[in-house]
């Protein structure tokens, strides 16, 4: 392997790895001298010195990290992205509310086969995906939950009628 290919290979492996890698690891994997890998890393560190991404020595190894100068933007961008990610349990709860609304916490818990969904409901209320829409007229007057308009926006729906037909999924309601 010539020096040019070695440098590109090291660059690609470091990029695609989510943990720092040591010179030793790479040298042994690529079956080349450690000094050659070290040289390639140094050249890369130099190349990336003034970029938005730097090659940083960390935990005895090397890792590509975004530059501290632009840290704020990167962090904010990914935080915003994570707004659209949900745990399976909360998405399942949301699905039940979407298809069964209005519905009480107890009914949701029964459908999911769990004791309580109050933590998840609080979370969904905070995210403005569901709302309380009155009380059910039974003993204890439990709250009834419904999805919000923001829910429709988040899931790209015009109305609740746009929710996929369950028959297509091979399930009878």
């Amino acid at each position, binding site marked *: 392997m010539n020096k040019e290919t070695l440098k590109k290979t090291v660059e690609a492996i470091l990029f695609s790895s989510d943990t720092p890698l040591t010179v030793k690891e790479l040298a042994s994997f690529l079956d080349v001298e450690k000094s050659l890998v070290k040289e390639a890393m140094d050249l890369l560190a130099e190349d990336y010195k003034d970029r938005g991404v730097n090659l940083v020595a960390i935990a005895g190894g090397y890792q590509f990290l975004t530059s501290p100068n632009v840290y704020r933007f990167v962090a904010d961008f990914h935080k915003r992205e994570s707004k659209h990610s949900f745990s399976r349990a909360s998405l399942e709860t949301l*699905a039940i509310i979407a298809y069964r609304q209005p519905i009480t916490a107890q009914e949701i818990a029964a459908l999911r086969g769990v004791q309580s969904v109050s933590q998840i409901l609080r979370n969904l209320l905070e995210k403005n995906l569901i709302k309380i829409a009155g009380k059910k007229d039974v003993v204890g007057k439990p709250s009834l939950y419904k999805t919000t308009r923001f829910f429709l926006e988040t899931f790209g729906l015009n109305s609740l009628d746009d929710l996929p037909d369950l028959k297509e999924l091979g399930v009878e309601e």
Partner: protein
Amino acid sequence: MEDFANFEIEIQNFTGPLDLLLQLIRKHKLEISEISISEITDKYSRVLKKMQEMNLDIAGDYFVMASTLMLMKAKSLIPREKEAFEEMKEELIFKLEEYEKITAQAKILAEKLNARQKMFERGFKEDFVSKERPLVVAENGAFILANLYAGVLRRLKALEPDIIKKSKYTMKQVVSAIYDFFRRRKKARFYEIVKGKDKSYVVYSFSSVLELIKENILKGVQTSHFAEIILLKGKKYSYKERDRIISRYE
């Protein structure tokens, strides 16, 4: 069987009856537009038979095509059905040509996929699709919701006793209907038995007839090698045998 030796490897890999037909056409270096129906029917049936011998789980789709091909062959022999035959043949050729395009397009996709998979994204991990990874709601969010809800319903259903959905026809009905046909006559053409019926009836009839032939209850004859199947009462034709066959499916 001349050329099944190297065909066997692919035999389990057909994606459907059109795929099987197209592979047969390619194998024999034929032009789609110039296929002979009786020849292709014969070749098709032989592969189907081979698949049955190998005890492969064959989808009904293959039998539907077999019956269609046989029906076409039958029509081609009847002068007044000539026009209907030509129409069916044209339709089949059109379908095969469309299907050939699809295979070419699927190949393009496979090549694109292959090229993309030579590149890796950031943070490429072994457990990339770990179950704990949060679900990201993108454009398919509504489907993910529907699917989760369907999962909830399935989970609940799993606790209920199983109710097996009845199909439109039963073997009992079909076998009885075939027997009715032979009440006042000694012979019938397969085409007559399924005339005017829907596809699933044709499938049921076809497999029932095969079963009855195997049991010597009926006899299948062909006047020439590629001609339509004519059915005759067999050695073991009796109502007792009918009930025995039917009882297997109860």
